[in-house]
């Protein structure tokens, strides 16, 4: 029998958020029906749509350097986005309930400054703010900031942990001008008095997405919500088990963390229609120019002369490892690129794959959930009833239609299965997530 204690007598529920990346290859900008990624009206429309769908949170991504490919700004993906806290403060004025979560970097912010901005968003929204804590270790991003690439890779979560603990002290409501928060280590050093009182939810809800050991420890210690990448059912179960076992050593209960993996969703009226739509979405996402650019980041050289529908480049990749300038390459892929490319060549030869077919195969990004509204609702209900996850952070591909599909088609099916709210019961993000109030002043 799954553990349902935190849900009271309501039973488990699907918690939904939207991860609005604002940039990246999954966004189908070329579709004429797709709304502008830059216009504030799109953000307002989406946030209000999600509020109609009783979502927990609207969640903005952020990256602190515009992505590049071989020294020039990468031109094939949607790019350019607002400061997350500024945009969410604007949205706070035209929404009432939905949580407003800002991705903010713990490497390239001043702790007291960021904590104050987040507290301000939390207060002005009536307790609806969240902070998705991310880190950046590459010096390439650091070139936009005062101290450059100051933080060694292995210490980024140490800094993030200290940063979060300092922020929690500032948000705890106990510090005054006579007893300021005073932190002095080699990674975090400041003295500040908070200017913003605690919001109705106590403090901003903390999201954390890191999947490395350091990331999981930070999540176990401080996160209220884990934005995990494990959405395959067995992987999700294993991840949930791992995370919950880590909670114990920090004196936390399994109920104190929500697990919401990122997921893309393609809905069709029939299973076949959904499959066809998912194939179309993938083929749009990995078009010819993007397939070439994908290989270029590994080859490290100009491949524009190659036909995306032809065989893999016959030239050898450049020496040296991958440069981080696309901003998206996972740590485990930053070394060993020659072995990786050799593997791709074998795969392409074995299955007769073109460049584009290979990239479709190896680049990930397939829709996590494809099906009819009823099929997807059945799957999600199973996930939450067995506590593999607590819900999902949906990554849209078309705005706003791919989200309207979820609000208008999947949400009613979830409600019919008794695993989704039929109205907001609470006012704050913490209440939406069924999370306990933070203990006052506790770091």
């Amino acid at each position: 029998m799954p553990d349902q204690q935190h849900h009271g007598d309501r039973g488990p529920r699907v918690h939904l958020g939207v991860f609005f990346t604002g940039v990246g290859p999954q966004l189908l900008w070329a579709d004429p029906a797709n709304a502008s990624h830059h216009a504030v009206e799109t953000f307002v429309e989406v946030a209000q749509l999600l509020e109609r769908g009783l979502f927990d949170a609207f969640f903005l991504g952020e990256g602190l350097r515009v992505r590049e490919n071989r020294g020039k700004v990468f031109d094939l993906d949607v790019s350019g986005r607002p400061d997350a806290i500024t945009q969410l403060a604007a949205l706070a004025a035209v929404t009432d309930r939905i949580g407003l979560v800002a991705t903010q970097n713990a490497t390239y912010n001043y702790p007291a400054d960021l904590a104050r901005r987040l507290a301000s968003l939390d207060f002005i929204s009536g307790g609806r703010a969240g902070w998705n804590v991310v880190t950046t270790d590459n010096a390439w991003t650091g070139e936009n900031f005062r101290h450059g690439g100051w933080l060694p890779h292995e210490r980024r979560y140490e800094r993030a942990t200290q940063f979060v603990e300092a922020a929690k002290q500032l948000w705890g409501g106990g510090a005054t001008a006579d007893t300021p928060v005073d932190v002095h280590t080699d990674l975090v050093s400041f003295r500040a008095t908070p200017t913003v009182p605690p919001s109705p939810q106590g403090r901003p809800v903390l999201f954390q997405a890191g999947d490395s050991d350091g990331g999981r420890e930070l999540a176990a210690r401080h996160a209220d919500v884990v934005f995990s990448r494990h959405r395959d059912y067995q992987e999700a179960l294993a991840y949930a088990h791992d995370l919950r076992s880590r909670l114990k050593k920090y004196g936390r209960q399994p109920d104190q963390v929500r697990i919401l993996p990122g997921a893309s969703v393609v809905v069709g009226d029939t299973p076949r229609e959904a499959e066809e739509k998912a194939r179309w979405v993938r083929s749009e996402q990995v078009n010819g120019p993007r397939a070439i650019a994908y290989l270029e980041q590994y080859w490290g050289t100009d491949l524009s002369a190659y036909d995306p529908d032809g065989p893999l480049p016959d030239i050898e990749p450049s020496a040296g490892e991958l440069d981080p300038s696309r901003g998206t390459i996972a740590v485990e892929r930053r070394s060993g690129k020659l072995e990786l490319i050799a593997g791709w060549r074998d795969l392409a030869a074995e299955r007769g794959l073109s460049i584009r077919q290979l990239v479709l195969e190896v680049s990930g990004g397939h829709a996590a959930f494809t099906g009819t509204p009823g099929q997807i609702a059945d799957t999600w209900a199973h996930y939450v009833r067995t506590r593999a996850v607590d819900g999902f952070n949906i990554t849209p591909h078309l705005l706003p239609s791919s989200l309207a599909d979820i609000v208008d088609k999947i949400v009613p099916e979830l409600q019919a299965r008794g695993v989704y709210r039929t109205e907001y019961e609470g006012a704050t993000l913490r209440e939406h997530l069924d999370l306990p109030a933070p203990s006052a002043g506790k770091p």
Partner: protein
Amino acid sequence: MSTAGLLLAVEAADAGADPAAGRYPGGPGSALDPRLLRARVAAAERAGFAFVTFGDRPAPPPTGGRLEAGVRAAYLSQLTRRIGLAPMLHVTTTEPFHLATQLASLDHASHGRAAWVVGAANDGPARATIGAAPLDEAARRQEVRDVIDVARALWDSWEDDAVIKDVATGRFLDNDKVHHVRFEGLSFSVIGPLITPRPPQGQVVVIATDSLGVADRADITLVGDLSAVEGARAAGSPLVFAELEVALDRPGEPAASRLERLDSLAPWPRTGRARFTGPAAGLTDFLAGLAGRVDGVLFHLAEAAADFPALADQVLPALTANGVARGPRPDDITLRDVLGLARPVNRFADPVRSKYSA
């Protein structure tokens, strides 16, 4: 530059400029309340103010609290349509890259109504919030110049027509029109480009007091003393506004006795700004005397709850009726339009290429 009629702006922060304003029993309530903020700025918009400023510091006020100014301005961007929104952000306690991004984003969210009041807090407690000591005066002035310069460069880092959405080639943007800025300041460098496309106004309106010594860089220079007007104009500031502290008579209580009462709670120190104390009609006359000498006035009200209604209901209508002051005109869209400032050409735009690609 001279515009037809004075432009008027008002500081919207806190309970008032007088440190005792928030303490007075039965006073205006919490300066933190978003509903009060909303009501105050909506009233300022109706009254015809060109913009509101949101003063700020990284440390708390003597009483109550204060929300970060950029958050307040962004919140109001969706609740107002014409009034300019001018948060104070400090160059000395923030990351320049974030500061430029926040202001560009405010300009997008408000459809071109963002301005920046340049702050340079340099006392011990303010600088300690970033783990630093106060700068010496030369370094502080250099920091002000450098952060303005890098913000302006970053606002140009995306050309207006950088986003092309060319389906045939799969290109979302023309990467010849998104630029590294490679800014090198005294204490920091920034490579760019900004993560945010160019603001609708091209450049966010930059507002700085003359004491910061950047009249050559600001769009509006604020002077506390009229003797500084000509210097600011000579340095190249397109607009010069006088800062004026105001306490107005109320029915049954002259301003002077109200200030006496407030001073008994906490004195209101002189800041070098002119101060007007008296009846609304006297202020109207005083302002008429400023017309033609300065382009506008930024009011700092002793007690917002008492002085704002008197200013909005009595002084502004009289000034507008006699042509001494003017508010946004029907065709004005951006704050630059209201101020009569041109939209700046992008420093990176190549006039020849632009001509042939048009």
